[in-house]
């Protein structure tokens, strides 16, 4: 492979990436508001909007972030730490603003041997009462969401 071929490949790949990115809508700019760290969702708790039950395979749940943990109803996105525990299979979670089609992205990937695993994320919020959707691909898993700030 000569130098020119490599350059062309790189350009080709970049063009493909840019094409994919440009398909996503953009809003903003927003400013960040740091809040006292706060657990907003814990599916290990008794069944409620932001509590249990545990996620099953292929299930989606919608949680209420705005109005909790100091996040105002005007917030457009939230800074989260996503933690999973008690996974029965390797799987992934997708987080996205509720109401829209589930995007083909993953927020955290894990295996059943992980006692608990976390990843940071910034996720948009819809204006619905339950403004954040979470999808679990396989097996059962508990999901915990801790808020550290929001954007608006």
């Amino acid at each position: 492979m000569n130098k020119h071929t490599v350059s062309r490949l790189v350009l080709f790949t970049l063009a493909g990436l840019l094409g994919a990115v440009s398909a996503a809508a953009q809003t903003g700019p927003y400013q960040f508001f740091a809040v006292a760290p706060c657990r907003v969702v814990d599916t290990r708790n008794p069944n409620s909007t932001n509590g249990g039950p545990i996620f099953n395979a292929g299930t989606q749940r919608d949680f209420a972030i705005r109005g909790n943990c100091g996040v105002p109803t005007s917030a457009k996105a939230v800074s989260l730490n996503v933690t999973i525990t008690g996974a029965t299979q390797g799987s992934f979670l997708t987080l996205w603003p509720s109401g829209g089609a589930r995007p083909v992205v993953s927020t955290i990937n894990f295996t059943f041997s992980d006692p608990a695993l976390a990843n940071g994320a910034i996720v948009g919020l819809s204006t619905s009462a339950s403004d954040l959707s979470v999808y679990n691909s396989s097996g059962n898993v508990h999901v915990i969401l801790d808020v550290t700030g929001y954007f608006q």
Partner: protein
Amino acid sequence: MLRSGGPVQFPSGFGGQFNIVNAVGTFTMSTITASSTVAPNSTGNTASVTTANGGTVTFSWTITGGTITSASNITSITYTAGASGSVVLRATAYKNGTNGATFPNGGVGITDTKTVTIVTCTAPAISTQPQSVGVPAGTGVTLSVGATGTSLTYQWYIGTSGVTTSPIGGATASSVNVTPSSTTTYWVRVSNSCGTMDSAAATVTVTPIAAASFYLLTPCRILDTRGGAPVPANGVMNLVVTGKCAVAAGATSAAVNVTVVNPSTSGFVTLYPGPANTVLPVVSTINYTPGRTLANNARITIGVDGSINIFNAASQPLDFLIDVSGYFK
């Protein structure tokens, strides 16, 4: 139920005969219930036993190092302590007559003795005043007072020191956790049987959550515990972050990557705003397992004092890295 009678021996003792109507079985008597310490020459100290079962007994109290002053019934007395040393209380019940009670193990009586130490009362004195502190809105903080004196009790109040109109319910220890929604002043009254002392007031200044813009930094390692002091087991490390890695004073949050290095056990880490006496929130920032070096991306809220706290929930110390990529201000 109880009928007093027989010899009454004030001031050194008190007693009488009593009869439990229709009682059956073996007579029993508890050990003496009384405070284990009393102040010199203090009055109104109480002692009691409880009894059950068993016919007629002759019951008596004796006391040394003090004086029995009254009895609400035979088995409860009030006494005045002596000036120093100790008070020895003894309660005795024994078989009365041929129809008397039966006692455990075929005995003829029960006795119990309790020694109460006479402790010279030292009035409260405050050695460490509660400290004023600034916190971001929604963040809890622990206020503490250091005090000396005998058998101290505490009550925390909201408001000006000495004004007791707003006591905090249940706040009766040397420290209290508070999460005011707006700037609030607190103080504590320290009391014992020989006096009270009021602390100075401490103000918890609440900084409202403010809009912040993002400032990008050259990636920079702001903490690396390897070769130094690790984050302690089940403990907290306080770290000032402003002024390091070009994080500006007044920053409200930092964009970081945190890494646990080859943990020897499993656990999790919670990053939360300083100062050191901020109440630990029930959240987690990264979970880890033995032997697995692992990273997580986070935005961590910085305290008004420019510091963060790193709590390691594990039975072993942890090597920990924090790499900062930007901050919000």
